[in-house]
């Protein structure tokens, strides 16, 4: 029998209130049986549902304009085409189905960009489970369409007013709900974060991304990818895109974090104007796991910042922290401005409006290989970029943030008025 990973080097673990521990043990057991060992055909049912309901496999598409712009072969893994509009459904559907196998009666989840909440609400509707989503007030305002979508799918959306009202606060609040309702409720965590077994389990549900990439590059090109590039908030699309290649040393792995407006921090205010926990964070314990964090010198967690709600998080998955320490994964960062430019570039040049999160991954190509790129990276080809989600949820935010800046490639917004 396969056994769950609970630690990744020094990272990971289970730092949660005692009230949750029995549930976490139960979940660990269910994860081992159903996910790792396909008991009762769980993984077969998951695969079938993620294909039929979710729309897998997603294509691997050559990016013609970007390839010629950068002079390297760029391929797009089109997770934006998954039902709901982001990779998030892989995990949400997997966990809601698991909750069903475990006999749970209620689903709760946190959400940042709203994509995980949307995916969870969709999966819960699909599998006929009641569902409540916690979302920071600030994120609610940044991602209204996703709030509508969750409600339409029959989920309750609970605004979280604590702190800055972003993902960090939403996770804390969902944990509080879970501590109260743990006997009947499963907490569908939205990224490769939280106490074991979540980081490993969420990764495994998303690993289908890299499994498909592997067979698609093999079929189309007869090779492995040379580089895989994915944005990283908590790091679930990242780990999903990397999982199959961790043992393939020839495949370079780049995790692109949100550089926000700057990498310097304001300790006094407890605010980091970025979300680059892998590049700049320090080891600590947050939301149930030991990992790299944005924290002040006392260990208080700092508020992060990114133009994209989904990357706006002070922590990161423990396995990614470990892979960075091991130098298997290269962490890089892309700031708000470059991400917005990349958002417009992909929309205009490739006809794909990416999520603002995803735009960071493309910003990395531009800041290294673009006309004004710093040439700091030699990409092994083909370069596969994970298009973790589409930008429909970001239209208002992208327009507003674009208007607040002088971007080279901003479209004329006049007709929008």
């Amino acid at each position, binding site marked *: 029998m396969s056994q769950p990973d609970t630690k990744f080097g020094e990272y990971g673990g289970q730092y949660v209130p005692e009230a949750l521990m029995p549930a976490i043990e139960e979940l660990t057991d269910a994860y081992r049986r159903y996910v790792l060992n396909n008991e009762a055909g769980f993984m077969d049912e998951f695969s079938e549902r993620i294909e039929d309901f979710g729309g897998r496999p997603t294509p691997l598409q050559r990016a013609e304009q970007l390839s010629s712009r950068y002079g390297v072969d760029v391929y797009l893994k089109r997770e934006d085409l998954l039902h709901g509009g982001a990779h998030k459904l892989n995990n949400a559907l997997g966990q809601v189905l698991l909750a069903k196998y475990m006999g749970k009666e209620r689903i709760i989840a946190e959400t940042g960009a709203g994509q995980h909440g949307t995916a969870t609400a969709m999966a819960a509707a699909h599998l006929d489970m009641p569902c409540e989503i916690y979302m920071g007030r600030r994120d609610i305002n940044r991602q209204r369409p996703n709030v509508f979508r969750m409600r339409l799918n029959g989920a309750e959306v609970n605004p979280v007013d604590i702190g800055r009202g972003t993902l*960090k606060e939403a996770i804390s609040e969902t944990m509080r709900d879970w501590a109260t309702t743990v006997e009947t409720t499963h907490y569908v965590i939205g990224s490769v974060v939280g106490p074991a077994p979540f980081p490993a389990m969420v990764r495994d549900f998303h690993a289908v991304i890299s499994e498909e990439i592997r067979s698609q590059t093999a079929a189309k090109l007869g090779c492995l990818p040379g580089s895989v590039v994915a944005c990283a908030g908590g790091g679930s699309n990242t780990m999903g895109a990397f999982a199959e290649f961790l043992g393939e040393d020839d495949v370079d792995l780049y995790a692109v974090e949100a550089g926000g407006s700057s990498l310097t921090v304001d300790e006094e205010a407890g605010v980091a104007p970025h979300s680059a926990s892998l590049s700049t964070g320090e080891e600590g314990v947050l939301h149930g796991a030991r990992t790299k964090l944005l924290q002040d010198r006392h260990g208080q967690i700092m508020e992060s910042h990114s133009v994209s709600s989904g990357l706006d998080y002070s922590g990161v998955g423990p396995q990614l922290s470990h892979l960075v320490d091991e130098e298997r994964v290269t962490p890089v960062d892309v700031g708000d401005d470059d991400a917005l430019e990349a958002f417009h570039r992909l929309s205009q040049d490739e006809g794909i409006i990416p999520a603002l999160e995803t735009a960071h991954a493309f910003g990395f190509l531009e800041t290294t290989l673009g006309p004004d790129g710093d040439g700091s990276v030699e990409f092994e080809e083909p370069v596969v970029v994970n298009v973790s989600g589409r930008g429909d949820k970001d239209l208002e935010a992208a327009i507003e943030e674009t208007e607040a800046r002088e971007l080279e490639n901003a479209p004329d917004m006049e007709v929008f008025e």
Partner: protein
Amino acid sequence: MPYLAAGDPDFESSLEYVEALAAGGADVIELGLPFSEPIAEGPTIQQAVVRSLEGGMTPERFFEFVAALDVDVPLVCMTYYNLIYQYGDEPVRSFVERAAEVGIEGVVVPDLPAEEADLLREACDEFGLDLIFIVAPTTAGDRLDRIMERVSGYVYVQARLGVTGARESLSDHTEETLARLEEYDVPKAVGFGISTGEHAASVVEAGADGVIVGSALIEIIAEGHETDDSTAAVAERIESLARELKAGAIEGGQRRPRPERT
């Protein structure tokens, strides 16, 4: 056993409030060192945490706070693991060493289950601090044994699922959990939701050795803070609730069916 967040709403007032607790008859005082992500706390304590942090509380200030206290009651520090882990040069050990230095006698860490507690256990042993674990209504069987093996000082019995916060009524879970713990020879303090002397009485009657009251006390501070009452007035109210709770606990002890000695 009352709980307050150190430095709520400011350093000086908070000192007086803790002293008021002692004056009210507290047997042990739990002092919270506020963490920015208090995942086990309900809204009342979350607000206290915010007030205290905004007032400039840090781990070092916390230790200064304890050192400055003029009370004769054992003090237990309640905080989250990341603050213990980050303090000083040696993760965990530095914190415990300093805590011992200022006279803290125990620590409770709500996000540290027994499984992850080895390092802290070691440090507490080294410096002679109690390591108090929480037992939840969901804790049973092997888990319970494992925890009870590691606990020292007392065990914090969580009266109900969920987060901290004053409640109108008591939880049914309390008696069950206390019953499950009967066989273990460790003092049992019950918390989560207790707000009145009558609560305290029934919990002690049900077998607890003490009650832990946090949110009910903090609500007094919050109200005083909002209405700009004098520190002395607030301290007086705190002392009076502490007294009521203490009286309740004693009353509960007396109501307890005498062990039948034949």
